[in-house]
């Protein structure tokens, strides 16, 4: 059998190189502008025409690469010969596109040494557009086709293409920006040389200072962040454990209600808790007002600073720890505890010598998850931090503040990145040793032991007040939307909603979205809706490649992917504006950058639900499809995807919801045209306009609860993927 031709892929590259306008067009592309061959304006011309008519010699290598790849794309000749042409052509093409893009910017040669070497260029180019993008994608796929022809990836072009797409996107949208931001550390500042500037930034007292130990001043942001993350992680893990024990090991009648807590962090915009705390403990908060009215006490601003951020984070992340720990507690085999009991251990001894030690790796995992969340958190510190700076907020102020010091932002980002990566490595090591948590499904019968009385008492004493507090915080936060001015004028009102979401009828009868929030809400929904399918698609593809395929470098790919998930949002935000502000990929201020950011920030959601669903799906199902002559693509389309429907819907909705609530990275990337809901809210909060902010949050929460409720209705608890391993007993009349 002849290996199929790569002509389609080649045509994509050719279309991008020969016909379409290579560069991004300022005012978008009209239909006529698509035919960019023969354009008088060099910026609107295709690569071919720019090279021929406008003397832009640097496109000749790209064109040559295209020609070189052609013999490989045609279905003639031996596989080895074709692979050679494809690899050479596509490799040259990618190298040519990347190096010309990086070498020539808006001001000619982009680095001094290039100018020194070749002299002034006298020409310039802007960011790549439709043509360049298609050409790049085409060359990537030609390269993977070539690799498949060479016999890599078991000769499977689809797998090889999927891996190529994943690798290319990791490089383009994580590795490159992160490298860029890190390299900013080394840019000279003022009269300081590179090394001196780096040292100055790196050993800044504001980062590492420990003077707070001795005197009553603020410590460096590094220590602040570390202290905050450690305290939050410890408190949230403890609370989460209490909740998990109550839910899984007691007969508490409201267990189901407690489980609902786990949904909260998903649907809560990041500053609802902060706002709720301000409304309770802030200067004009309920508690302060009561204290003043009843006892004449002035409680002051204690909520602003470490106390407030800590409290808010514990409220925010306890559900996360709870979610992780439910799995841990349920994963402990009751048989172990029964064995312990038959060996005459008391309940307390069983708990302390068997149950708890078995949970240690799980507890460590939960602790680290919360630690990383706290580290990356931006919403709570920005609302409640006051003068208590943490890394994420300091990065923000270094970029948007009066100082505009990207070097400082880069150093802070590097510190944050290192902390996050260390936590990630530790977590991997911890989870890797979890082997003795028995989940074999074999002989795991037995009843979980009831908790020892003392442990039970502690769990209830800790968890129930906390649950009540959480409810109070949420209620207060939402109640704030319905009074005129919290703390001063308690008149019930809907005016905040009206300011945000007013609808008016124009004299002509048309509907006018007059409220101030409509624009950002529509933008958010639109962009989240665009990002969701991309996230789900890419995430499931990655999950499929990682769980179902075996190829050289799979572990490396998995590791790289996991690593990109460990990069904190704030770092990504800074990295994106620094990288995509200038050609070759000039997408700052566009909707594209926001969509890209959503996709890569939320990719873990897609990957995780994909991996979970796929591990329930017997691997021999897709192997069967492949041996039945289905192409890999057809096997995915007709077998894997239909069986994964619930996972797809889940990934879609969760990536949509998360795109709507994210703030850390997005806050750097919004523009006047593309403003996001969360950023709109945070600006209201910063201006002290709590009423409107809360009203908006309430609308978001309702919107997302609806979305999640809808999928639970649609997907429900359907068990499509499970194949019965044992022959089921057949209803009467079935046997042949």
């Amino acid at each position, binding site marked *: 059998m002849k290996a199929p031709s790569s002509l389609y892929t080649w045509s994509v590259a050719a279309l991008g190189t020969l016909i379409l306008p290579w560069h991004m067009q300022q005012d978008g592309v009209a239909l006529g502008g698509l035919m960019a061959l023969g354009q008088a304006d060099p910026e609107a011309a295709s690569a071919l025409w720019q090279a021929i008519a406008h003397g832009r010699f640097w496109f000749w290598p790209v064109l040559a690469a295209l020609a070189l790849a052609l013999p490989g794309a045609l279905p003639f000749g031996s596989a080895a010969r074709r692979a050679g042409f494809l690899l050479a052509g596509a490799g040259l093409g990618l190298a040519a596109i990347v190096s010309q893009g990086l070498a020539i910017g808006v001001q000619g040669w982009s680095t001094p040494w290039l100018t020194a070497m070749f002299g002034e260029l006298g020409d310039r180019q802007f960011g790549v557009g439709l043509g360049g993008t298609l050409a790049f994608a085409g060359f990537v796929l030609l390269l993977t086709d070539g690799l498949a022809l060479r016999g890599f990836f*078991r000769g499977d072009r689809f797998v090889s293409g999927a891996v190529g797409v994943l690798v290319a996107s990791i490089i383009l949208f994580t590795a490159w920006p992160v490298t860029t931001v890190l390299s900013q550390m080394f840019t000279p500042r003022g009269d300081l040389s590179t090394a001196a500037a780096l040292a100055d930034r790196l050993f800044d007292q504001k980062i590492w200072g420990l003077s707070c130990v001795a005197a009553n001043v603020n410590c460096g942001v590094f220590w602040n962040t570390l202290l905050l993350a450690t305290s939050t992680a410890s408190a949230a893990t403890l609370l989460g454990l209490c909740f998990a024990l109550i839910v899984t090991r007691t007969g508490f009648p409201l267990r189901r209600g407690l489980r609902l807590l786990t949904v909260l962090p998903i649907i809560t915009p990041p500053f609802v808790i902060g706002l709720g705390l301000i409304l309770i403990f802030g200067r004009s908060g309920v508690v302060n007002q009561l204290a003043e009215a009843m006892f004449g006490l002035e409680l002051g601003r204690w909520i602003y600073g470490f106390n407030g951020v800590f409290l808010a984070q514990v409220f925010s992340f306890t559900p996360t720890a709870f979610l992780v720990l439910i799995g841990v507690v349920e994963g402990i085999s009751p048989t172990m505890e029964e064995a312990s009991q038959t060996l005459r251990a008391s309940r307390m001894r069983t708990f302390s010598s068997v149950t708890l030690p078995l949970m240690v790796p799980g507890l460590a995992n939960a602790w680290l998850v919360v630690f990383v969340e706290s580290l990356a958190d931006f919403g709570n510190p920005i609302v409640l931090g006051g003068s208590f700076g943490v890394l994420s907020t300091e990065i923000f102020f270094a970029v948007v503040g009066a100082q505009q010091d990207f070097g400082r932002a880069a150093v802070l980002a590097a510190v944050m990145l290192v902390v996050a990566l260390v936590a990630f490595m530790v977590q991997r090591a911890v989870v890797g040793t979890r082997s003795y948590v028995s989940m074999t499904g074999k002989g795991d019968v037995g009843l979980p032991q009831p908790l020892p009385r003392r442990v039970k008492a502690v769990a209830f004493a800790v968890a129930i007040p906390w649950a009540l507090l959480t409810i109070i915080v949420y209620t207060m936060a939402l109640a704030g939307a319905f009074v005129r001015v919290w703390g001063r004028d308690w008149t019930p009102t809907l005016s905040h909603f009206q300011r945000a979401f007013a609808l008016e009828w124009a004299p002509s009868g048309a509907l006018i979205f007059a409220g101030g929030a409509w624009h950002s809400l529509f933008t958010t929904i639109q962009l989240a809706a665009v990002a969701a399918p991309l996230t789900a698609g890419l995430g499931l593809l990655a999950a499929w490649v990682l769980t179902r395929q075996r190829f050289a470098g799979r572990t490396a790919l998995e590791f790289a992917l996991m690593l990109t998930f460990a990069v904190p949002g704030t770092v990504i935000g800074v990295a994106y504006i620094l990288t995509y502000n200038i050609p070759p990929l000039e997408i700052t201020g566009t909707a594209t950058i926001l969509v890209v950011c959503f996709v890569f920030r939320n990719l873990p959601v897609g990957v995780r639900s994909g991996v979970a669903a796929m591990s329930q799906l017997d691997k021999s199902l897709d192997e*069967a499809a492949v041996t*039945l002559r289905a192409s890999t693509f057809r096997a995915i389309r*007709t077998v894997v995807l239909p*069986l994964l429907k619930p996972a797809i819907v889940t990934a879609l909705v969760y990536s949509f919801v998360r795109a709507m609530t994210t703030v850390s990275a997005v806050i750097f990337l919004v523009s006047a045209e593309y403003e996001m809901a969360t950023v709109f809210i945070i600006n209201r909060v910063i201006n002290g306009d709590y009423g409107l902010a809360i009203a908006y949050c309430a609308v978001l929460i309702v919107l997302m609860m609806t979305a999640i409720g809808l999928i639970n209705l649609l997907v429900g608890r359907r068990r499509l993927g499970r194949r019965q391993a044992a*022959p089921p007993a*057949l209803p009467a009349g079935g046997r042949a």
Partner: protein
Amino acid sequence: MSHAIAKPGAEVRLQGIGKRYGAVQAVKPLDLTIEGGTLVTLLGPSGCGKTTLLRMIAGLEQATDGRLFIGGRDVTLLPAGARNVSMVFQSYALFPHMSVLDNVAYGLVSSGMRKRDAHGRAETALETVGLKGFGSRLPSEMSGGQQQRVAVARALVLEPEVLLFDEPLSNLDARLRRSMREEIRALQQRLGLTVVYVTHDQSEALAVSDRIVVMRNAEIAQAGTPEELYSQPNSVFVATFMGEANRVPGRIESIDGDRARVALGGLVLDLPARGLPAGPVDIVIRPEAVRVSAAEPGALPARVARATYMGSHAECHFETEVGSVFVVAPRGAARLRPGAEVGLVLDPEGVVLVAP
């Protein structure tokens, strides 16, 4: 009866085929030729590499060494779908969201056949395996044996040059396993298929195979017809894997042509030498090749350790000067009392020499 399925099976030739996962050698490079139209079993304990070998033939794993030919064509680098093979999976791998008919027609539709024609062919294939009229059911609505047959029909309908079975009967109960293996064997002989069949059950292998390939530690321990493997194992491993066997130490006193004079305790036996040199040797004695008699010259003196009544026969353990010997004897032997002195007479048919 089935005009749809009538292509003589092709020869499969493995030339130095091997598979490494990093440092682990799952299959050491090996040569093997499977003649067209025969059923060859890959037999071995779990982890011996037999399934990996099968999956390499299927194209689900890529060999890291060697070349693979099917019907004379080099398919080493071809993906599974481009090889003319099909496979019946251990778990059947029936698509749970498709009807039985859609399952069986899946491969045909994948190859570009029109759905209506494919369904017609699928009906025929279902008829071949005795499931006419079951097309509209979902796999979950069928019994284990029926699912197994659907899996076979789905593989057959493509008229593959080679049909692969990966422990196809391991999910069935003992009785059904026996009848299904006869069905598979009958089908294979009727259609002249080339079949490669993986199992770890030696009685299943003996019952269905033209040839058996016993694997151990990622390589071939011995290959041959069922009878060869049972009566002339080349190692203690193969001997014990192919059925119950006693292994006792002996000594080749002298060689005369292809016969050897072997000392077993006080006895001297005349057995095929099988190319072994004089010196210590292992003697494999099948339990059914021993007759229990009175202590007499020419018999191995033995003392009864225990005798168990098994219904159709008796299982006896004896202590002898060369070690303990297990014997399957007529049921009357169950009356032997522990401690009684007897003699064991060996039937040369069930006694074979192997290298120590």
